[in-house]
């Protein structure tokens, strides 16, 4: 946006770290001219625990609970990414049933994560009700996770070589009920929020990220697809059983405004939920009895080497750069966090917007500070 000639003194405002719309402990230092933002500098690190240092102190399998605590609203996807990276170095074959279960829980977690993004985005913009609807369905998914691994948020379910345990018998009927509920619920969300006039007015043409800019800044996931780039690792660099599954990759088309605005990013998430529901159903249909853990993966020692593996989490591409010296512990485990890279574009996009639009912008990037700060 064009910055008009300054009319008043520059004022510095700290947004956060205790601000509900920053979705955690993010502090953004705003230089403002009246209501208009001139400069935005994010300050990170309030939740920094140095995950990567911890990885070097525990066994390979012991890293998985730490990955739970990075993106804690999509912990399954984090488990999945880490295990795939280690298995790439190990060269382990995963049993068919374990692979299906992994994709099943990852897609369920993607729905849960997007529901949270959808609900809290409504609150950011000023609509409280959608949040309650979103949590109604999210609760069902967390219940399902409780059935399969006992935890509701930090699962440690996907392990190196498979998954920790098989599903209980009540899982499948409950999961099919969830699929039916979600198919009815998503049109409801659209009626409630997506095409609501006030919501559209608040998000249309706000925070436009052109495709070229998104690529140069390393944006991935819904932020990249919201800018109209059709790129999804599950489709374009498929891993696990994704090549055998049928789904579409939704992209932002600028339906209510410019391509790459906040509304586009928001809508990509809603449409991804529809696709994930289909994926969950396909996975349920493919479940056949069998082992859920590969043999000889209880205590692993990957050979000396370095690998980089990336997967598509609800927030973007999560990369693990893993270095092994042939020992029982990781020599180095670097995480390429999607939120960290997506958030870095904020200082580029924010100038010229109003302070109130900043809330819409941060919400549309959908960060989880546990993963930004690690």
């Amino acid at each position, binding site marked *: 946006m064009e910055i008009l000639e300054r009319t008043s003194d520059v004022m510095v405002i700290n947004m956060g770290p205790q601000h509900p719309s920053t979705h955690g402990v993010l502090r953004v230092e705003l230089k403002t001219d009246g209501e208009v933002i001139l400069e935005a500098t994010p300050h*990170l*690190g309030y939740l*920094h625990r*140095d995950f*990567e*240092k911890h990885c070097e*102190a*525990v*066994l390979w399998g*012991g890293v998985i609970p730490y990955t739970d605590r990075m993106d804690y609203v999509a912990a399954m996807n984090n488990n999945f990414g880490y295990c795939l990276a280690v298995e790439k*170095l190990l060269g382990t074959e995963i049993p068919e049933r374990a692979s299906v279960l992994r994709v099943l829980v990852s897609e369920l977690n993607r729905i849960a994560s997007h529901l949270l993004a959808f609900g809290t985005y409504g609150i950011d913009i000023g609509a409280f009700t959608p949040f309650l609807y979103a949590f109604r369905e999210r609760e069902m998914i967390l219940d399902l996770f409780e059935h399969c691994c006992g935890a509701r948020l930090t699962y440690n379910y996907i392990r190196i070589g498979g998954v920790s345990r098989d599903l209980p018998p009540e899982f499948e009927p409950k999961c099919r009920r969830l699929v039916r509920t979600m198919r009815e619920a998503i049109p409801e969300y659209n009626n409630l929020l997506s095409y609501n006039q006030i919501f559209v007015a608040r998000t249309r043409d706000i925070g436009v990220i052109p495709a070229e800019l998104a*690529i*140069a*800044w*390393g*944006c991935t996931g819904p932020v990249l697809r919201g800018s109209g*780039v059709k*790129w999804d690792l599950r489709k*374009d660099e498929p891993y696990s059983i994704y090549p055998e599954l049928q789904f579409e990759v939704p992209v932002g088309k600028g339906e209510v405004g410019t391509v790459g605005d906040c509304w586009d990013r928001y809508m990509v998430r809603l449409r991804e939920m529809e696709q994930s529901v289909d994926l969950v159903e396909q996975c349920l249909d493919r479940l056949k009895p069998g082992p859920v853990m590969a043999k000889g993966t209880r205590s692993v020692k990957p*050979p*000396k*080497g*370095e*690998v*980089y593996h*990336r997967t598509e989490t609800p927030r973007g*591409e999560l*990369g693990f*750069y893993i*270095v092994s010296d042939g020992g*029982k512990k990781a*020599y*180095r485990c*670097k995480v*390429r966090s999607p939120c*960290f*890279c997506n958030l*870095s*574009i904020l200082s*580029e996009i924010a100038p010229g917007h109003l302070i109130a639009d900043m809330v819409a912008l941060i919400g549309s990037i959908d960060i989880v500070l546990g993963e930004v*700060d*690690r």
Partner: protein
Amino acid sequence: MDFALIGARLAGKFGGDAVPTVPEKGDPFVLVKRERIAEVCRFCREDEALTFNSLHCISGIDYPKDQKLAVVYNLFSFRHRHSVALRVEMPRDGEPHLDSVVAVWPGANWLERETYDMFGIRFDGHPDPRRILLPDDWEGFPLRKDYQVAEMWHGMRIDANYHPPGGPPKE
């Protein structure tokens, strides 16, 4: 393009300063001479056949035994849908430093700041060379293998040997 072609193209342009390497296990990489990394990155970005328009990840690695630090750049091209890893190695002593690639990919900004924060590798020409995850007045670089936790920080005592109930992890 696959790795062999990308490696050959880089080796053809930069000779001995960009050596394609295929290890026994793990991902292949191109070993780049420290002084030429920014130049190689710019070529990767601007060459028609390569067009690596996205910098994915910058990882630092510390090898105290060999007295060296390594930095790995994972690049990706949305146009050609291929990727490559560039690797730079430098001595660990003194002030390790590298040329910044922020001018090539703006997304390198925070990744380089993180690498400085954790390993103390300076990036020459970085527009905002501050720490990012740790407080600005932090001492030391935690991901170096020989990092010692300070005993006190702003009047607070730090017990580096503290373990939650259950004791330290068992071997």
